[in-house]
């Protein structure tokens, strides 16, 4: 059948248009990466990981002397790791157990409500989570703290872990569970010895992705952890994080280079977590 000229042109135009516009989507990614790497790589040295943020004055002296800014973001890195660790301790056990519950009870009324609520929790803007943890933790403790920040991050992680665990468990063949039960194993030992080990890859990937999602969070930490200019190991005191440092100093022209380095560090951290997650999910594919 002959295709009329107009239809032919329209067909080709759509094809070419889709390719061009799709290609353009890569432009912002490349622009951001290039900018962050070019501006940030020079500051990343040993001190960057071991020293705390310099004052503006120190930075001015260094810039005038033509040197790189002294100091680093150790206070941010330590605070970030502490808060993410606390978030993991809270969110991983509850998330996995709740994921098992949802996967095992597909039809119960409570499960469908919980599934709905998990979706709801997942959609809550992170700044609103910050407000809630401010009310729940900061006000009773009468102080901003790393604990509050950790709890806020755990609330963001929780629904992600619940859903990824549930999805992974649902992909497991039911015969696996039936085989365990038919051998006389109790329900709990089937879950712990058969189901969880076979679903390990998917669950672990879900956890890594959840961590990479919260590691750059800033808004909830502003209202809960506040920030700190020193390395703070006491979790009941205000703490800093890499993202909070960027927020604190992005406006300061003297510390600009340090902030770009902090962004580079954050991006690399997230990239490594994602690569790691992808490798694990490929290796442990069900």
């Amino acid at each position, binding site marked *: *059948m002959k*295709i009329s000229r107009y*239809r032919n042109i*329209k*067909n080709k*135009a*759509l*094809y070419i248009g*889709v390719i061009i*516009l*799709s290609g*353009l*989507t*890569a432009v*912002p*990614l490349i*622009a*951001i990466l290039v*900018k*962050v790497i070019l501006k940030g790589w020079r500051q990343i040295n040993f001190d960057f990981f071991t020293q705390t943020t310099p004052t503006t004055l120190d930075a001015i002296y260094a810039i005038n002397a033509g040197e790189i800014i002294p100091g680093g973001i150790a206070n941010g890195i330590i605070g970030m790791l502490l808060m993410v660790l606390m978030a993991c301790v809270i969110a991983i056990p*509850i998330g996995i*157990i*709740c994921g*098992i*519950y*949802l996967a095992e009870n597909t039809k119960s009324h*409570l499960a469908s409500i919980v599934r709905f*609520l*998990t*979706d*709801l*929790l997942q*959609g*809550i*803007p992170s*700044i*609103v989570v*910050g*407000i809630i943890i*401010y*009310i*729940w933790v900061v006000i009773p403790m009468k102080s901003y703290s790393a604990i509050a920040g950790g709890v806020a991050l755990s*609330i963001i992680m929780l629904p992600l872990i619940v859903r990824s665990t549930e999805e992974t468990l649902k992909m497991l063949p039911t015969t696996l569970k039936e085989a365990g039960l038919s051998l006389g194993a109790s*329900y*709990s030992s089937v*879950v712990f010895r058969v189901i969880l080990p076979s679903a390990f890859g998917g669950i672990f990937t879900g956890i890594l992705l959840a961590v*990479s999602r919260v590691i*750059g969070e*800033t*808004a909830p930490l502003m*209202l809960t952890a506040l920030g700190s200019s020193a390395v703070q190991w006491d979790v009941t005191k205000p703490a800093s994080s890499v*993202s909070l440092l960027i*927020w604190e100093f*992005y406006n300061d022209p003297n510390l*600009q280079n340090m*902030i770009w380095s902090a*962004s580079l560090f*954050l991006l690399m951290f997230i*990239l490594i977590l*994602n690569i790691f997650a992808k490798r694990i999910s490929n290796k442990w594919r069900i």
Partner: protein
Amino acid sequence: MSDKLFKIILSSSAVIILLISGGMVYSLTSGSIPAFKEFGFFNFIFSPEWNATPGNEEYGALTFIVGTIMTSLLALLFCIPFSLPVAIFIGEYFKGKRIASVLGTIVDLLAGIPSIVYGLWGFYVLRPLIVSLGLSEQGFGVLTASLVLAIMIIPYAASLSSEFIRLVPGELKEGAYSLGATRAEVIQSIIFPLAGPGIFSAYMLALGRAFGETMAVTMLIGNANIIPTSLTDTGNTMASIIANQFGEAGGLKLSSLIAIGLLLFIITAIINYIGKLIIKRRNQ
């Protein structure tokens, strides 16, 4: 461990989710009651006043609601011409090919960049660009914020829409081809009608994201408590006013900010619910 105990532990984790969600709604509501009592619920929503002078305090959410809706809808508008082609690219033209997974990875990487880094990039790269184009003097404003916001929501819109485009049954497309349709016609009259509701829900979820996005918007919108009347006007969104003023707030102001948080919570919940509902309908 006995099975009975194990089942109780499983259910109690579900109860924890119930408690967290219930507690959230309770805390937000009880925190915003002083503001609603002082100004009245509807008055609070529709008042454009934001005056923190002691003794003369008056707070309303309208400025920020308008700012939020303006930036989010504009971001959605900017994001469609890029996210839709990406979805067609991945879901139809190069379905299952290596190049599609490369583009998919690029989109995933875009989703992985934290909001604060987008904000930093917008502040030091996009803002000077807007200034040099002569669009505004300082470069802050609704336009700058929604451009960055658009880049941020492309991944959410694109990856979900491409899923729905990919799920369109091959027989239907083949039927159209056998009748002599071109590929463009298949996309227009087979794929879009069938994947339409799914694509719509993908954009709803992207819109929900845009509503709650805080850091990048706060760094770029200019933080002026006025209703923006043009694209280059500065303004504030619901998220950005909370981010900017929560730290030093107390009393009535704190309650008003919590009330804005409650409104933001309700709006995003409704948008997400509509999106999820459509997806669920499609799956059944």
